[in-house]
């Protein structure tokens, strides 16, 4: 009697369960094999974080630039020719000229270009956008970062519409690399009409290949083809959906199941399992990951100790273990893809014995104890800071240095490092405008002490050299100055430079024309499914 009831009841439950799951499992879900017309014109692009704004002028985030760079365009574009990052005339300016002293620039604009709301793109629009930023007071962070300050504090004194299709910029101090700054997505030209209406951050309007459709915050942003795009034959896709998937392994899984077509910021450890079936692409490096040593904290005020640290760290092992062998070992503060790279600098070889003897010379033959700071989040130049720190800790142990690993959540980490609380710390940076100054000025100039000059270095001679770079109109002069700067930085062993990472993306094999730039985004106008 009892058993019969059990069997009956269990049978009913099982039947219910089976019918429910049969209903659900209707075959391959979400794959691009589902439905006609979906998948081959629409690109689903999974990324690690959402945009913080839609108007890129308000943002410093690379994720924001990734999306917005397809809707609004800059006067000048970055491109990578295989060995070096350059600015090109494929942007809204078809050419430009600089005055001999580098204080005046005139840009010839493309003609016959309209904004997506139908209003014309012309010199007045450019002036309008720049004046908007110049008059700012805190909301456009890239303006003071690139030009020194808002209004009269900044280097741009005037922006004038010379005629309908030419704009001139007058600078207070010469800036040989001014066009590089203009290639930063935050300086893309938006429709003055949309800005006036105050809707540019709700519904951005530009001249780009794709128009904004909608934004589901922390979920997805959808763009659709701009039928009136000024470059004939582009874009090739009808729609792009930028989907946020924060967990890197969840991103890769979504690619493997066919739910998405393209993923960015691949974790190096995942590359091995997908490279056979998917197309893995690498960004040429524009960044640096390093172990900084705060020079105001003993014993890192002693150059011999800093040099010993350099000899104690085995960069090769780090790259092999945590970057899937795909990063470049760093010798200088910036990679060879950037102007003025000094290939004559002799790297400090991995040599534990040399490290020990240097330490003895400095009076530390018994070694010393220190705090080694590592960030808890994944950064483009350092996908796994904690693990890298552990390996460095072991390597330092070999030469008698006892390192304690210290960590804080990212916001606190940066704040404390800037306050000079860290003995030695892992950090990094990307040059936002592709120039060497974009890293050197931020990291080593004394006026950035307490901000991005994390190691608190003060050297008037280096300051002087870096100041001259900006005004050096002749590229050869610039290169000579930069090489000098790199030699000083190396001799002083201010950092243990670790890697220049090559962040990886992966896509389904039939997606072509994605051109990953060193700056962290890509030109999707040229992408399509074969």
């Amino acid at each position: 009697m009892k058993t019969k009831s059990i069997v009956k009841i269990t049978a009913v439950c099982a039947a219910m369960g089976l019918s429910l799951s049969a209903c659900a499992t209707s075959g391959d879900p979400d794959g691009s094999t589902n439905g006609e017309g979906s998948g081959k014109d629409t690109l689903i692009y999974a990324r690690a974080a959402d945009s913080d704004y839609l108007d890129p002028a308000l943002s410093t985030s690379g994720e924001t630039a990734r999306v917005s760079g397809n809707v609004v365009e800059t006067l000048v574009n970055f491109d990578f020719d295989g060995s070096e990052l350059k600015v090109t005339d494929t942007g809204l300016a078809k050419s430009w000229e600089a005055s001999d002293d580098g204080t005046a620039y005139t840009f010839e604009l493309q003609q016959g270009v309209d904004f997506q709301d139908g209003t014309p793109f012309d010199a007045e629009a450019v002036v309008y956008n720049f004046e908007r930023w110049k008059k700012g007071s805190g909301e456009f962070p890239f303006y003071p970062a690139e030009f020194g300050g808002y209004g009269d504090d900044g280097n741009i004194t005037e922006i004038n519409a010379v005629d309908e299709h030419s704009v001139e910029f007058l600078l207070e101090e010469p800036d040989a690399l001014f066009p590089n700054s203009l290639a930063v997505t935050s300086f893309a030209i938006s429709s003055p009409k949309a800005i006036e209406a105050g809707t540019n951050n709700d519904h951005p309007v530009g001249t780009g290949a794709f128009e904004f459709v909608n934004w589901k915050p922390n979920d997805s942003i959808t763009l659709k083809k701009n039928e009136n795009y000024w470059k004939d034959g582009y874009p090739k896709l009808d729609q792009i959906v930028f989907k946020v998937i924060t967990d890197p392994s969840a991103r890769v899984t979504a690619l493997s199941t066919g739910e998405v077509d393209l993923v960015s910021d691949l974790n190096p450890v995942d590359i091995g399992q997908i490279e056979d079936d998917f197309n893995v692409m690498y960004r040429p490096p524009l960044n640096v990951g390093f172990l900084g040593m705060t020079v105001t904290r003993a014993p890192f005020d002693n150059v011999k100790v800093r040099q010993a640290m350099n000899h104690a760290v085995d960069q090769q092992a780090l790259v092999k273990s945590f970057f899937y062998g795909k990063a470049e070992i760093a010798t200088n503060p910036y990679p060879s893809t950037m102007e003025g790279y000094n290939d004559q600098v002799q790297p400090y070889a991995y040599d534990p014995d040399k490290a020990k003897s240097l330490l003895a010379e400095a009076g530390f033959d018994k070694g010393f104890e220190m705090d080694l700071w590592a960030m808890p989040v994944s950064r483009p130049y350092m996908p796994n800071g904690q693990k890298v720190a552990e390996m460095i800790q072991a390597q330092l142990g070999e030469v008698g240095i006892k390192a304690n690993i210290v960590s804080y959540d990212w916001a606190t980490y940066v704040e404390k490092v800037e306050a000079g609380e860290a003995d030695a710390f892992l950090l990094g940076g990307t040059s936002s405008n592709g120039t060497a100054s974009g890293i050197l000025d931020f990291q080593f100039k004394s006026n950035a002490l307490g901000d991005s000059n994390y190691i608190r270095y003060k050297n008037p001679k280096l300051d002087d050299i870096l100041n001259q770079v900006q005004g050096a109109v002749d590229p050869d002069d610039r290169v000579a100055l930069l090489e000098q700067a790199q030699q000083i930085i190396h001799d002083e062993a201010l950092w243990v430079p670790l890697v220049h990472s090559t962040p990886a993306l992966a896509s389904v094999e039939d997606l072509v024309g994605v051109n990953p730039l060193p700056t962290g985004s890509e030109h999707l106008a040229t992408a399509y499914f074969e």
Partner: protein
Amino acid sequence: MPVLIGVSLISFLLVRLIPGDPAQVILGELATEDSIAQLNRQLGLDQPWPIQYFNYLLGIVQGDFGLSLTQNTPISDEIWIRFAATAELALFAMLIAMVVGITLGVLSARFHNTWFDQLMMIIALAGVSIPVFWLGVMGKLVFALQLNVLPSIGRENIREPVDPITNFYLIDSLLAGRPDQFVSVFEHLLLPAIVLSSIPMAVIARMTRSSMLEVMGLDYMRTAKSKGLRDFTIIMRHGLRNAFVPVLTIIGLQVGTLLGGAILTETIFGWPGIGTYLYDAIQARDYTVIQTGILLVALAFVLINLLVDLLYAAIDPRIKY
């Protein structure tokens, strides 16, 4: 009401005590002392905190939750959407937990001390012991990656997005007349809901079982059996109905816990819910979002417990208010 005021004050203060500056996080690697000060002024963060708190309360009373510090958009726009996403997941998970849990509990009590009872209790133990994130990742590995029968991420097919009206996608897909989307949304709900339901299911099963055992030992149950009533009637009408009150309490508490942020499940399955919303806000020191989020969750908890109290009266005629 006083609970809610207390919660809002405490969360307001606590959040500001955490080291770290929202302006610093917003500006990132480009932050300089000047720009941080400027941004703080702009965001109204340089005012004395009693004034900030007062402005905040004033806004809430008018239904205005203020702007997100990091995104400069009204919080009310986004917070309801995220809340609905978690609510849909939590309710579906609770449905599974209740159906499976109560069934297991009743059957275990009915077949007390048989192999069936032992087996069901082992399942319940597993449910409460297996880490949610392990279950989630395993579920994805098997059903999404290897068998490819369920999707691995999100609430909907990214290629066929649901038109949000109520933000409950099961409802919205039907409103749009798209049964194919309904199925797709259901598929997306299944794995995370099952994973999320594992703990509540186990708790409910055990509670139901012990409550039923208590009730079944009472005299009136023997009376019912001796009257010759069928097994099913005895268990359901006389047994469960009376055993249900403690189970209901548990259910209420569990729903509150799930709503509070099924954050692990949401992270694993990329579910855009309130758990991840709050977590991201804490990382970014977005004070306004954190305050409002905590307040809302507390409100939901209070309301659910109120509902449970009312349901007691419906089930048990002895309880009157």
